[in-house]
Protein backbone atom coordinates (compact mmCIF):
# COMPACT_ATOMS: atom_id res chain seq x y z
CA UNK A 1 0.00 0.00 0.00
CA UNK A 2 2.80 2.34 0.98
CA UNK A 3 4.67 1.39 -2.18
CA UNK A 4 1.59 2.10 -4.34
CA UNK A 5 1.12 5.47 -2.68
CA UNK A 6 4.81 6.31 -3.31
CA UNK A 7 4.52 5.42 -7.04
CA UNK A 8 1.36 7.54 -7.35
CA UNK A 9 3.10 10.43 -5.59
CA UNK A 10 6.11 10.12 -7.91
CA UNK A 11 3.89 9.97 -11.03
CA UNK A 12 1.93 13.04 -9.90
CA UNK A 13 5.22 14.87 -9.32
CA UNK A 14 6.56 14.01 -12.76
CA UNK A 15 3.30 14.99 -14.47
CA UNK A 16 3.09 18.30 -12.66
CA UNK A 17 6.76 19.08 -13.69
CA UNK A 18 5.73 18.84 -17.37
CA UNK A 19 4.89 22.07 -19.18
CA UNK A 20 1.42 22.80 -20.53
CA UNK A 21 2.82 22.31 -24.03
CA UNK A 22 4.21 18.89 -23.12
CA UNK A 23 1.03 17.83 -21.34
CA UNK A 24 -1.55 19.19 -23.77
CA UNK A 25 0.05 19.39 -27.20
CA UNK A 26 2.70 16.72 -27.62
CA UNK A 27 0.59 13.62 -26.73
CA UNK A 28 -1.93 14.23 -29.57
CA UNK A 29 0.71 15.23 -32.18
CA UNK A 30 2.91 12.25 -31.34
CA UNK A 31 0.78 9.83 -33.28
CA UNK A 32 0.14 12.11 -36.24
CA UNK A 33 1.57 11.59 -39.70
CA UNK A 34 2.79 15.21 -39.77
CA UNK A 35 5.16 15.90 -36.91
CA UNK A 36 4.66 18.93 -34.68
CA UNK A 37 7.87 20.71 -35.91
CA UNK A 38 6.51 20.73 -39.48
CA UNK A 39 3.55 22.80 -38.30
CA UNK A 40 5.99 25.28 -36.73
CA UNK A 41 8.03 25.72 -39.94
CA UNK A 42 4.87 26.14 -41.99
CA UNK A 43 3.79 28.94 -39.62
CA UNK A 44 7.27 30.45 -39.85
CA UNK A 45 7.12 30.29 -43.65
CA UNK A 46 3.86 32.22 -43.66
CA UNK A 47 4.11 34.63 -40.71
CA UNK A 48 7.88 35.24 -40.25
CA UNK A 49 8.21 37.05 -36.91
CA UNK A 50 7.70 35.67 -33.41
CA UNK A 51 4.82 38.02 -32.72
CA UNK A 52 2.99 37.21 -35.98
CA UNK A 53 3.57 33.45 -35.66
CA UNK A 54 2.27 33.31 -32.08
CA UNK A 55 -0.68 35.54 -32.90
CA UNK A 56 -1.69 33.30 -35.84
CA UNK A 57 -1.28 30.06 -33.81
CA UNK A 58 -3.37 31.35 -30.90
CA UNK A 59 -6.07 32.63 -33.24
CA UNK A 60 -6.26 29.28 -35.04
CA UNK A 61 -6.22 27.12 -31.90
CA UNK A 62 -9.00 29.21 -30.35
CA UNK A 63 -11.05 29.10 -33.53
CA UNK A 64 -9.84 26.34 -35.91
CA UNK A 65 -11.23 26.63 -39.44
CA UNK A 66 -10.35 25.66 -42.99
CA UNK A 67 -9.82 29.23 -44.05
CA UNK A 68 -6.99 29.92 -41.56
CA UNK A 69 -5.24 26.55 -41.58
CA UNK A 70 -1.64 26.30 -42.75
CA UNK A 71 -2.02 22.66 -43.72
CA UNK A 72 -2.22 21.78 -47.37
CA UNK A 73 -5.66 20.82 -48.74
CA UNK A 74 -4.80 17.11 -49.01
CA UNK A 75 -4.01 16.79 -45.29
CA UNK A 76 -7.05 18.82 -44.27
CA UNK A 77 -9.27 16.61 -46.42
CA UNK A 78 -7.69 13.53 -44.86
CA UNK A 79 -7.49 14.54 -41.19
CA UNK A 80 -10.00 17.38 -41.03
CA UNK A 81 -9.85 20.50 -38.87
CA UNK A 82 -8.78 19.98 -35.24
CA UNK A 83 -11.04 20.60 -32.29
CA UNK A 84 -11.10 23.92 -30.49
CA UNK A 85 -8.60 24.19 -27.62
CA UNK A 86 -9.80 23.64 -24.06
CA UNK A 87 -6.90 25.65 -22.61
CA UNK A 88 -7.48 29.04 -21.05
CA UNK A 89 -5.91 32.01 -22.90
CA UNK A 90 -3.07 32.13 -20.32
CA UNK A 91 -2.40 28.40 -20.64
CA UNK A 92 -2.51 28.64 -24.42
CA UNK A 93 -0.06 31.53 -24.40
CA UNK A 94 2.28 29.59 -22.16
CA UNK A 95 2.05 26.51 -24.42
CA UNK A 96 2.75 28.59 -27.55
CA UNK A 97 5.72 30.26 -25.83
CA UNK A 98 7.16 26.82 -25.06
CA UNK A 99 6.51 25.71 -28.66
CA UNK A 100 8.32 28.82 -30.00
CA UNK A 101 11.20 28.24 -27.62
CA UNK A 102 11.53 24.66 -28.80
CA UNK A 103 11.68 25.28 -32.53
CA UNK A 104 12.64 28.92 -33.28
CA UNK A 105 15.68 29.27 -35.53
CA UNK A 106 17.35 32.29 -33.88
CA UNK A 107 19.93 30.57 -31.73
CA UNK A 108 20.14 27.40 -33.74
CA UNK A 109 21.66 28.67 -36.97
CA UNK A 110 25.43 28.31 -37.17
Amino acid sequence: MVKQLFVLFLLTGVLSAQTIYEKNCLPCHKGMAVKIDKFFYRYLLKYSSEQEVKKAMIAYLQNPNVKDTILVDGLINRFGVKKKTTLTPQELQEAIDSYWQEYNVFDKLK
Partner: protein
Amino acid sequence: MLALKNWDINLRWSEKKTLLSFLLLYSFLTLLILVFVAFLYYGLQRDLMLQSKREALSNLTNEQIAKLKNLHINFAKEQIYPRDDRFNSAIYDSSFKEIFSTLNSKNVNLYEDIYLKEGKIYFIKELESYYLGARYIAIEVNEPPFWSKKVYEELGLYGAILFLILTFIGYFLLNIILQPMKNAIALLDRFIKDTTHELNTPINAILSNIEMIELDALDENLARKIKRINIGAKTISHLYEDLTYLILSHSALSFDEDVELKPLIEERIEYFSLIVESKKITLSAELHKAIFLHIDRKKMTKLFDNILSNAIKYNKINGSIHIVLQEGCLEISDSGKGIEEEKIAHMFERYTRFDKTVGGFGIGLNIVAFIAKEYHLLITIHSKINEGTKVTISW
Protein backbone atom coordinates in the same frame (compact mmCIF):
# COMPACT_ATOMS: atom_id res chain seq x y z
CA MET B 1 40.77 95.09 -62.49
CA LEU B 2 41.80 98.72 -62.74
CA ALA B 3 41.03 99.58 -59.14
CA LEU B 4 43.12 96.71 -57.81
CA LYS B 5 46.22 97.88 -59.65
CA ASN B 6 46.49 100.79 -57.26
CA TRP B 7 44.78 99.12 -54.35
CA ASP B 8 46.83 100.83 -51.62
CA ILE B 9 46.51 104.22 -53.23
CA ASN B 10 42.94 104.35 -54.38
CA LEU B 11 40.94 102.35 -51.88
CA ARG B 12 40.23 103.37 -48.32
CA TRP B 13 39.96 100.97 -45.39
CA SER B 14 36.15 100.97 -45.34
CA GLU B 15 36.05 100.38 -49.09
CA LYS B 16 38.55 97.55 -48.78
CA LYS B 17 36.41 96.09 -46.01
CA THR B 18 33.32 96.25 -48.25
CA LEU B 19 35.22 94.59 -51.08
CA LEU B 20 36.61 91.94 -48.76
CA SER B 21 33.11 91.22 -47.43
CA PHE B 22 31.85 90.93 -51.01
CA LEU B 23 34.71 88.61 -51.94
CA LEU B 24 34.13 86.46 -48.88
CA LEU B 25 30.40 86.25 -49.53
CA TYR B 26 30.98 85.53 -53.22
CA SER B 27 33.58 82.86 -52.45
CA PHE B 28 31.26 81.29 -49.89
CA LEU B 29 28.33 81.22 -52.32
CA THR B 30 30.54 79.89 -55.12
CA LEU B 31 31.81 77.17 -52.85
CA LEU B 32 28.27 76.39 -51.72
CA ILE B 33 27.11 76.04 -55.34
CA LEU B 34 30.12 73.88 -56.19
CA VAL B 35 29.57 71.63 -53.19
CA PHE B 36 25.88 71.31 -54.07
CA VAL B 37 26.64 70.46 -57.71
CA ALA B 38 29.39 68.04 -56.63
CA PHE B 39 26.95 66.38 -54.26
CA LEU B 40 24.37 65.98 -57.06
CA TYR B 41 26.99 64.67 -59.49
CA TYR B 42 28.35 62.18 -56.97
CA GLY B 43 24.79 61.00 -56.23
CA LEU B 44 24.07 60.56 -59.94
CA GLN B 45 27.28 58.60 -60.56
CA ARG B 46 26.64 56.44 -57.49
CA ASP B 47 23.09 55.66 -58.64
CA LEU B 48 24.34 54.76 -62.12
CA MET B 49 26.93 52.43 -60.64
CA LEU B 50 24.36 50.81 -58.33
CA GLN B 51 21.92 50.34 -61.22
CA SER B 52 24.62 48.55 -63.20
CA LYS B 53 25.12 46.17 -60.28
CA ARG B 54 21.44 45.56 -59.55
CA GLU B 55 20.88 42.62 -61.89
CA ALA B 56 23.97 40.73 -60.76
CA LEU B 57 23.06 41.29 -57.10
CA SER B 58 19.48 40.17 -57.72
CA ASN B 59 20.81 36.91 -59.19
CA LEU B 60 23.08 36.36 -56.18
CA THR B 61 20.13 37.01 -53.87
CA ASN B 62 18.00 34.44 -55.72
CA GLU B 63 20.78 31.88 -55.32
CA GLN B 64 20.90 32.59 -51.59
CA ILE B 65 17.11 32.34 -51.30
CA ALA B 66 17.22 28.92 -52.99
CA LYS B 67 19.77 27.80 -50.40
CA LEU B 68 17.60 29.19 -47.59
CA LYS B 69 14.63 27.27 -48.97
CA ASN B 70 16.65 24.06 -48.88
CA LEU B 71 17.79 24.81 -45.34
CA HIS B 72 14.20 25.52 -44.26
CA ILE B 73 13.03 22.16 -45.55
CA ASN B 74 15.89 20.27 -43.90
CA PHE B 75 16.24 22.38 -40.80
CA ALA B 76 15.74 19.43 -38.47
CA LYS B 77 18.89 17.83 -39.91
CA GLU B 78 20.98 20.80 -40.98
CA GLN B 79 21.40 24.18 -39.26
CA ILE B 80 24.39 25.69 -41.02
CA TYR B 81 23.64 29.05 -42.60
CA PRO B 82 24.62 29.09 -46.31
CA ARG B 83 27.74 31.16 -47.00
CA ASP B 84 29.28 32.35 -50.26
CA ASP B 85 32.73 33.76 -51.06
CA ARG B 86 31.27 36.32 -53.45
CA PHE B 87 29.11 38.08 -50.88
CA ASN B 88 28.01 38.36 -47.27
CA SER B 89 24.36 38.12 -46.37
CA ALA B 90 21.85 38.50 -43.58
CA ILE B 91 18.22 37.57 -43.02
CA TYR B 92 15.62 39.48 -40.98
CA ASP B 93 12.09 38.66 -39.89
CA SER B 94 9.04 40.86 -40.52
CA SER B 95 9.73 42.85 -37.35
CA PHE B 96 13.24 43.64 -38.75
CA LYS B 97 14.86 41.41 -36.14
CA GLU B 98 18.10 39.88 -37.36
CA ILE B 99 17.82 36.09 -37.70
CA PHE B 100 21.39 35.52 -38.89
CA SER B 101 24.08 37.71 -40.44
CA THR B 102 27.53 37.43 -41.96
CA LEU B 103 27.60 41.16 -42.84
CA ASN B 104 30.37 43.51 -41.75
CA SER B 105 27.83 46.18 -40.86
CA LYS B 106 25.25 45.60 -38.17
CA ASN B 107 23.10 48.54 -39.25
CA VAL B 108 21.35 47.73 -42.49
CA ASN B 109 18.65 49.98 -43.85
CA LEU B 110 15.92 47.53 -44.84
CA TYR B 111 13.75 50.34 -46.21
CA GLU B 112 16.24 50.89 -49.03
CA ASP B 113 16.39 48.82 -52.18
CA ILE B 114 20.09 49.19 -52.95
CA TYR B 115 22.65 51.54 -51.44
CA LEU B 116 26.33 52.25 -50.90
CA LYS B 117 27.89 52.56 -47.45
CA GLU B 118 31.55 52.63 -46.41
CA GLY B 119 32.77 51.01 -49.62
CA LYS B 120 30.14 48.24 -49.60
CA ILE B 121 27.05 47.82 -51.73
CA TYR B 122 23.94 46.58 -49.91
CA PHE B 123 21.10 44.98 -51.85
CA ILE B 124 17.85 44.31 -49.99
CA LYS B 125 15.08 42.01 -51.19
CA GLU B 126 11.78 40.96 -49.65
CA LEU B 127 11.11 37.22 -49.81
CA GLU B 128 7.82 35.87 -51.13
CA SER B 129 7.94 32.84 -48.77
CA TYR B 130 9.56 33.49 -45.43
CA TYR B 131 12.11 30.64 -45.31
CA LEU B 132 13.37 30.28 -41.73
CA GLY B 133 11.05 33.19 -40.94
CA ALA B 134 13.15 35.51 -43.11
CA ARG B 135 11.10 38.28 -44.70
CA TYR B 136 14.10 40.37 -45.79
CA ILE B 137 17.44 39.31 -47.15
CA ALA B 138 20.43 41.67 -47.41
CA ILE B 139 23.42 41.02 -49.65
CA GLU B 140 26.73 42.86 -49.08
CA VAL B 141 29.46 43.12 -51.74
CA ASN B 142 32.49 45.38 -52.19
CA GLU B 143 32.06 48.44 -54.41
CA PRO B 144 33.86 48.24 -57.80
CA PRO B 145 37.59 49.04 -57.41
CA PHE B 146 38.67 52.65 -58.20
CA TRP B 147 35.06 53.66 -58.72
CA SER B 148 35.18 56.47 -56.14
CA LYS B 149 38.66 57.57 -57.26
CA LYS B 150 37.38 58.01 -60.82
CA VAL B 151 34.37 60.00 -59.59
CA TYR B 152 36.57 62.25 -57.41
CA GLU B 153 38.90 62.87 -60.35
CA GLU B 154 35.94 63.87 -62.50
CA LEU B 155 34.61 66.04 -59.69
CA GLY B 156 37.99 67.78 -59.38
CA LEU B 157 38.15 68.46 -63.12
CA TYR B 158 34.57 69.67 -63.53
CA GLY B 159 34.78 71.57 -60.21
CA ALA B 160 37.87 73.45 -61.40
CA ILE B 161 36.21 74.34 -64.73
CA LEU B 162 33.05 75.49 -62.95
CA PHE B 163 35.09 77.48 -60.43
CA LEU B 164 36.93 79.25 -63.26
CA ILE B 165 33.63 80.14 -64.92
CA LEU B 166 32.22 81.45 -61.62
CA THR B 167 35.43 83.40 -60.94
CA PHE B 168 35.11 84.97 -64.38
CA ILE B 169 31.52 85.98 -63.56
CA GLY B 170 32.74 87.31 -60.19
CA TYR B 171 35.35 89.42 -61.95
CA PHE B 172 32.66 91.15 -64.01
CA LEU B 173 30.38 91.56 -60.99
CA LEU B 174 33.23 93.14 -59.00
CA ASN B 175 33.95 95.53 -61.85
CA ILE B 176 30.31 96.61 -61.93
CA ILE B 177 30.29 97.13 -58.13
CA LEU B 178 33.60 99.02 -58.17
CA GLN B 179 32.67 101.35 -61.02
CA PRO B 180 30.88 104.08 -58.96
CA MET B 181 33.65 103.95 -56.34
CA LYS B 182 36.36 104.25 -59.00
CA ASN B 183 34.50 107.14 -60.61
CA ALA B 184 34.29 109.04 -57.30
CA ILE B 185 38.00 108.53 -56.56
CA ALA B 186 39.00 109.47 -60.09
CA LEU B 187 36.89 112.65 -59.84
CA LEU B 188 38.58 113.67 -56.58
CA ASP B 189 42.06 112.88 -57.90
CA ARG B 190 41.39 114.86 -61.09
CA PHE B 191 40.12 117.80 -59.04
CA ILE B 192 43.26 117.78 -56.87
CA LYS B 193 45.51 117.53 -59.94
CA ASP B 194 43.81 120.48 -61.61
CA THR B 195 43.83 122.52 -58.38
CA THR B 196 47.51 121.77 -57.78
CA HIS B 197 48.44 122.84 -61.26
CA GLU B 198 46.63 126.14 -60.85
CA LEU B 199 48.21 126.81 -57.40
CA ASN B 200 51.83 126.57 -58.46
CA THR B 201 52.42 129.92 -60.12
CA PRO B 202 50.56 132.24 -57.64
CA ILE B 203 52.17 130.60 -54.57
CA ASN B 204 55.65 131.00 -55.96
CA ALA B 205 54.91 134.61 -56.87
CA ILE B 206 53.64 135.42 -53.35
CA LEU B 207 56.50 133.69 -51.51
CA SER B 208 59.31 135.13 -53.64
CA ASN B 209 57.86 138.63 -53.41
CA ILE B 210 57.48 138.40 -49.61
CA GLU B 211 61.10 137.30 -49.31
CA MET B 212 62.16 140.37 -51.27
CA ILE B 213 60.40 142.74 -48.88
CA GLU B 214 62.69 144.34 -46.28
CA LEU B 215 60.64 143.98 -43.14
CA ASP B 216 62.93 146.25 -41.09
CA ALA B 217 62.19 149.13 -43.42
CA LEU B 218 58.45 148.85 -42.84
CA ASP B 219 56.47 150.16 -39.93
CA GLU B 220 55.44 147.61 -37.30
CA ASN B 221 51.78 147.39 -38.35
CA LEU B 222 52.60 146.73 -41.98
CA ALA B 223 55.37 144.26 -41.05
CA ARG B 224 52.82 142.25 -38.99
CA LYS B 225 50.46 142.17 -41.97
CA ILE B 226 53.24 140.97 -44.24
CA LYS B 227 54.10 138.26 -41.70
CA ARG B 228 50.47 137.09 -41.76
CA ILE B 229 50.57 136.98 -45.57
CA ASN B 230 53.83 134.99 -45.30
CA ILE B 231 52.19 132.48 -42.90
CA GLY B 232 49.18 132.12 -45.17
CA ALA B 233 51.36 131.65 -48.22
CA LYS B 234 53.50 129.05 -46.44
CA THR B 235 50.37 127.16 -45.37
CA ILE B 236 49.18 127.10 -48.98
CA SER B 237 52.68 126.17 -50.08
CA HIS B 238 52.73 123.26 -47.62
CA LEU B 239 49.38 122.08 -48.87
CA TYR B 240 50.56 122.44 -52.45
CA GLU B 241 53.64 120.33 -51.70
CA ASP B 242 51.50 117.65 -50.09
CA LEU B 243 49.22 117.51 -53.09
CA THR B 244 52.15 117.43 -55.50
CA TYR B 245 53.76 114.65 -53.49
CA LEU B 246 50.54 112.69 -53.42
CA ILE B 247 50.07 112.88 -57.16
CA LEU B 248 53.64 112.62 -58.38
CA SER B 249 56.43 112.15 -55.86
CA HIS B 250 55.56 108.98 -54.00
CA SER B 251 55.78 106.98 -57.20
CA ALA B 252 59.03 108.67 -58.24
CA LEU B 253 62.47 107.26 -57.47
CA SER B 254 63.96 108.03 -54.06
CA PHE B 255 67.43 109.53 -53.65
CA ASP B 256 68.38 107.95 -50.36
CA GLU B 257 71.35 109.24 -48.39
CA ASP B 258 72.50 109.42 -44.78
CA VAL B 259 70.60 112.43 -43.52
CA GLU B 260 71.56 113.99 -40.20
CA LEU B 261 68.26 114.68 -38.56
CA LYS B 262 69.18 117.49 -36.12
CA PRO B 263 69.96 120.17 -38.74
CA LEU B 264 67.01 119.06 -40.87
CA ILE B 265 64.60 119.37 -37.92
CA GLU B 266 66.04 122.72 -36.89
CA GLU B 267 65.59 124.00 -40.44
CA ARG B 268 61.96 122.86 -40.50
CA ILE B 269 61.29 124.38 -37.05
CA GLU B 270 62.64 127.64 -38.43
CA TYR B 271 60.38 127.28 -41.47
CA PHE B 272 57.31 126.87 -39.24
CA SER B 273 58.45 129.47 -36.69
CA LEU B 274 56.13 132.19 -37.95
CA ILE B 275 53.07 129.95 -37.77
CA VAL B 276 54.13 128.73 -34.31
CA GLU B 277 54.58 132.30 -33.22
CA SER B 278 51.19 133.34 -34.60
CA LYS B 279 49.45 130.76 -32.36
CA LYS B 280 51.64 131.76 -29.39
CA ILE B 281 52.83 128.13 -29.10
CA THR B 282 55.91 127.35 -27.03
CA LEU B 283 58.10 125.04 -29.06
CA SER B 284 60.93 123.27 -27.28
CA ALA B 285 63.31 120.71 -28.71
CA GLU B 286 65.85 118.25 -27.33
CA LEU B 287 67.78 117.24 -30.39
CA HIS B 288 70.75 114.91 -30.08
CA LYS B 289 73.58 115.35 -32.51
CA ALA B 290 74.90 112.86 -35.06
CA ILE B 291 71.72 110.87 -35.52
CA PHE B 292 71.50 109.72 -39.10
CA LEU B 293 68.78 108.05 -41.10
CA HIS B 294 69.27 106.58 -44.56
CA ILE B 295 66.36 108.25 -46.31
CA ASP B 296 65.38 110.59 -49.14
CA ARG B 297 65.85 114.09 -47.71
CA LYS B 298 62.69 115.47 -49.33
CA LYS B 299 60.61 112.60 -48.00
CA MET B 300 61.98 112.95 -44.47
CA THR B 301 61.21 116.66 -44.64
CA LYS B 302 57.68 115.89 -45.80
CA LEU B 303 57.18 113.37 -43.05
CA PHE B 304 58.37 115.73 -40.33
CA ASP B 305 56.52 118.74 -41.80
CA ASN B 306 53.23 116.89 -41.82
CA ILE B 307 53.51 115.74 -38.22
CA LEU B 308 54.69 119.14 -36.99
CA SER B 309 52.07 120.98 -39.02
CA ASN B 310 49.36 118.80 -37.44
CA ALA B 311 50.80 119.48 -33.98
CA ILE B 312 50.51 123.21 -34.72
CA LYS B 313 47.17 123.05 -36.53
CA TYR B 314 45.33 121.07 -33.84
CA ASN B 315 47.05 122.88 -30.93
CA LYS B 316 45.41 125.55 -28.82
CA ILE B 317 46.51 129.19 -28.51
CA ASN B 318 49.35 129.41 -25.94
CA GLY B 319 49.85 125.64 -26.24
CA SER B 320 53.13 123.82 -26.38
CA ILE B 321 55.03 121.46 -28.65
CA HIS B 322 57.97 119.39 -27.51
CA ILE B 323 60.29 117.61 -29.93
CA VAL B 324 62.75 114.93 -28.80
CA LEU B 325 65.29 113.37 -31.14
CA GLN B 326 67.36 110.51 -29.79
CA GLU B 327 68.93 107.35 -31.17
CA GLY B 328 66.20 105.20 -32.67
CA CYS B 329 63.27 107.55 -32.33
CA LEU B 330 61.79 110.97 -32.88
CA GLU B 331 58.93 112.17 -30.68
CA ILE B 332 56.63 115.12 -31.31
CA SER B 333 54.26 115.88 -28.44
CA ASP B 334 51.65 118.61 -28.43
CA SER B 335 49.14 120.03 -25.98
CA GLY B 336 46.36 119.95 -28.55
CA LYS B 337 42.76 118.74 -28.42
CA GLY B 338 43.70 115.07 -28.86
CA ILE B 339 41.78 112.35 -30.64
CA GLU B 340 39.65 109.39 -29.54
CA GLU B 341 41.55 106.09 -29.38
CA GLU B 342 39.22 104.28 -31.79
CA LYS B 343 39.84 106.93 -34.46
CA ILE B 344 43.64 106.62 -34.34
CA ALA B 345 43.67 103.55 -36.59
CA HIS B 346 41.86 105.50 -39.32
CA MET B 347 44.00 108.64 -39.09
CA PHE B 348 46.29 107.50 -41.90
CA GLU B 349 43.50 106.97 -44.43
CA ARG B 350 43.40 109.42 -47.27
CA TYR B 351 40.73 112.18 -47.13
CA THR B 352 40.00 111.32 -43.49
CA ARG B 353 39.50 114.34 -41.30
CA PHE B 354 38.11 114.10 -37.81
CA ASP B 355 38.27 117.81 -36.99
CA LYS B 356 36.79 119.96 -39.72
CA THR B 357 37.21 123.25 -37.82
CA VAL B 358 40.69 123.60 -39.36
CA GLY B 359 41.56 123.44 -43.04
CA GLY B 360 43.03 120.60 -45.02
CA PHE B 361 42.20 117.71 -47.31
CA GLY B 362 43.07 114.89 -44.94
CA ILE B 363 46.10 113.79 -46.94
CA GLY B 364 49.02 114.75 -44.63
CA LEU B 365 49.07 111.61 -42.49
CA ASN B 366 48.36 109.47 -45.54
CA ILE B 367 51.63 110.76 -46.99
CA VAL B 368 53.34 110.09 -43.65
CA ALA B 369 52.05 106.51 -43.77
CA PHE B 370 53.40 106.01 -47.31
CA ILE B 371 56.87 107.31 -46.39
CA ALA B 372 56.95 105.30 -43.16
CA LYS B 373 55.96 102.16 -45.06
CA GLU B 374 58.64 102.76 -47.70
CA TYR B 375 61.42 103.17 -45.11
CA HIS B 376 60.08 100.66 -42.56
CA LEU B 377 59.55 103.33 -39.92
CA LEU B 378 57.18 102.53 -37.08
CA ILE B 379 54.74 105.28 -36.19
CA THR B 380 52.88 105.09 -32.90
CA ILE B 381 50.32 107.61 -31.74
CA HIS B 382 49.21 108.13 -28.15
CA SER B 383 46.46 110.64 -27.62
CA LYS B 384 44.21 111.87 -24.84
CA ILE B 385 41.24 114.14 -25.43
CA ASN B 386 41.96 117.74 -24.26
CA GLU B 387 45.46 116.74 -23.12
CA GLY B 388 47.38 116.26 -26.33
CA THR B 389 48.94 113.85 -28.76
CA LYS B 390 52.37 112.25 -28.92
CA VAL B 391 53.62 110.90 -32.24
CA THR B 392 56.67 108.63 -32.09
CA ILE B 393 58.64 107.64 -35.17
CA SER B 394 60.94 104.71 -34.44
CA TRP B 395 63.48 102.98 -36.64
